[in-house]
């Protein structure tokens, strides 16, 4: 009897869902809003080329979902949560945008996800780093796709501590991302028997790091940890080498480096730096094939964010096609139910907190002798399995996780 009842209810439920889903295509277009820093310090890691990656995914998908056309709009968020919020509010409230993609500065993503939750629309964050995005700031309306500060700390910081870098001094970008990264690094360093003996929070962005490097040198720490990104990181690395940090026996640990940063520094300056990445263009035939196509479009090699934007857009479109719906919750559920197997990730999985978990990689920047061309920059030292990389749900503070 109960068996029968269960069957009946689920049959009714699925009938309702299908019926509901068909009615749920809110209008005759799937509209994707691409939001990123298009002109500022984080432009190159996502920016206009991220938009190209998104358009590549749509073109590869065929330009239509079940006969419904796909439209793309884009905007420059200028790394400002205020500016991003007003754009996204306009998009979702007046312009029927179904999905917001891209998103780089963590402060932007956190602000945008709140608006998406209010309006029950979906966001896929590819550029941001703060692990708090799927922890205390999680919502049922966004997915965090490429990487976050938790595996960055797990990968790089634990490797450096194991090599003997016991005491750390942190140079931290003074906003959400830097704070999250500093927190995650501190946890990993302490868990491995090390200690963070000092930190300085520098304004974002900062051009001259000499003052902070001097303080880090005076601290006598084994390791200077850079919890910043983009031009801040490259400026800090250049200044550190100018002030003889490595000659004096200190190690530099850059917690977040994108391929574009390493390319800007060059193998000469950056050689030997260890970093954690979610993806690298030269890993296998699949990644190389896609990267070649990307390079034809843009003239540069893709960062992990570019690859993630392509992959996540594909996932989204597949989910929309499979459910016949553009309803945020229906699509998100379908994306969670579908493992990700493409050029970006193998057996990637979107968890209930919105975190996409997949294997991460500990890489080292090649020496100028090893590097065959200007983009031949990493050698992969170790694959960090997905379950080891990301914050386990058992430690989650996300409201969607029952702890």
């Amino acid at each position, binding site marked *: 009897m109960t068996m029968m009842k269960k069957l009946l209810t689920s049959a009714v439920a699925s009938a309702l869902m299908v019926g509901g889903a068909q009615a749920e295509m809110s209008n005759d277009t799937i509209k994707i809003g691409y939001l990123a820093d298009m002109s500022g310090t984080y432009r190159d890691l996502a920016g206009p080329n991220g938009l190209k990656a998104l358009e590549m995914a749509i073109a590869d998908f065929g330009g239509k979902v079940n006969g419904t056309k796909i439209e793309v709009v884009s905007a420059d968020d200028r790394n400002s949560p205020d500016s991003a919020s007003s754009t996204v509010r306009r998009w979702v409230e007046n312009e029927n945008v179904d999905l917001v993609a891209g998103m780089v500065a963590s402060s932007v993503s956190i602000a945008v996800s709140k608006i998406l939750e209010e309006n029950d629309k979906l966001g896929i964050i590819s550029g941001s780093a703060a692990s708090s995005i799927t922890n205390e700031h999680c919502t049922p309306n966004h997915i965090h796709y490429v990487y976050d500060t938790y595996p960055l700390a797990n990968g790089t910081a634990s490797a450096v501590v194991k090599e003997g870098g016991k005491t750390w001094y942190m140079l931290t970008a003074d906003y959400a991302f830097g704070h999250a990264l500093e927190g995650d690094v501190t946890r990993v360093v302490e868990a491995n028997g090390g200690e963070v003996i000092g930190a300085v929070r520098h304004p974002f962005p900062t051009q001259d790091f000499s003052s902070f490097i001097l303080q880090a040198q*005076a601290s006598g720490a084994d390791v200077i940890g850079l919890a910043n990104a983009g*031009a801040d990181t490259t400026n800090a690395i250049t200044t550190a080498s100018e002030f*003889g940090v490595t000659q004096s026996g200190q190690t530099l640990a850059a917690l977040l480096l994108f391929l574009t940063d390493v390319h800007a520094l060059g193998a000469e300056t950056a050689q030997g730096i260890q970093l954690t990445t979610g993806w690298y263009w030269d890993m296998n035939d699949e990644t190389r094939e896609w990267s070649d196509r990307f390079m034809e479009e843009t003239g540069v090699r893709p960062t992990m964010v570019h690859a993630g934007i392509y992959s996540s857009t594909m996932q989204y479109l597949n989910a929309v096609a499979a459910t016949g719906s553009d309803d945020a919750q229906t699509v998100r559920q379908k994306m969670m139910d579908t493992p990700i197997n493409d050029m970006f990730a193998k057996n990637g999985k979107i968890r209930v907190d919105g975190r996409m978990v997949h294997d991460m990689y500990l890489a080292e920047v090649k020496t100028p002798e090893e590097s065959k061309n200007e983009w031949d920059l990493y050698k992969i030292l170790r694959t960090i399995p997905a379950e080891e990389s990301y914050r386990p749900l058992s430690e989650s503070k996300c409201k969607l996780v029952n702890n």
Partner: protein
Amino acid sequence: MSMIFGVPLAVLSGQLLIGIINGAFYALLSLGLAVIFGLLKIINFAHGAMYMLGAMTTVLMFDYLGVNYWVALLLAPLVVGVFGVVIEYFLLRRIAGQDHIYSLLLTFGVALMIQGVLINWFGVSGLRYTMPDMFKGGVNLGFMFMPYYRAWVIVAALLVCFGTWFVIEKTKLGSYLRAGTEDSQLMQGFGINVPLLISLTYGFGVALAAFAGVLAAPIYSVTPVMGSSTLIVVFAVVVIGGMGSIGGAIITGILMGVIEGLTKTFYPPASSAVIFLVMVLVLMFRPSGLFGKEA
């Protein structure tokens, strides 16, 4: 070790020195602004872009033409200076004598265009420029490691600053300049080509910014956006020093570098705001600036 407010004296001396180095940059940049404002009454919002162009020109001349650092130190300011003369001749001249806001908006627009075009070409990750070999390394001063290049920055910046001050305040050419801007008709009557003098002054002002850009190229990421954040700070410096005061701009530049450096030691989060705080205080209690003449 002796301590001052919980900071070891050695660290403090290092920070003072760093402050002076950064101050030398501010001095060089605010000097150019002060020259342009003091003599031409133009609020040059393209100054940050000219600083950036100086650095970009240095890198590009090296990459494509193999021009070395020393030649770039002369050539980059010259190239950017000529570019400045072109801007003055074709654009700024047309709004001469109008309200300050016109020159501010015009130069701001020019700066945004230059920056936008270069972002499209080169991205923002930064171009690579290798430090000249003779400047590699440094000397241990006991309280800090002093890279040779930073020492050179102080020397070069101060020499150029002093030279500029001397020419404008103490030579005959300088007196022509000052007189030409006071009463251009009378000076024309004396047979002096005032429009040319004005073009050259603007060109010289932006060449100073470009010179600072060349000095910056080996130590900062050279990107199209490097000038935009610097510009605002440098304007604050000029306001504090007194708009148009040549000597004031130099002294205030160094002073502000030191104040910012000390803030980075004692309370880093405020370091991007401290100069503006000083500006507010100066505007409240001495509106014409520390070295400005009462208007």
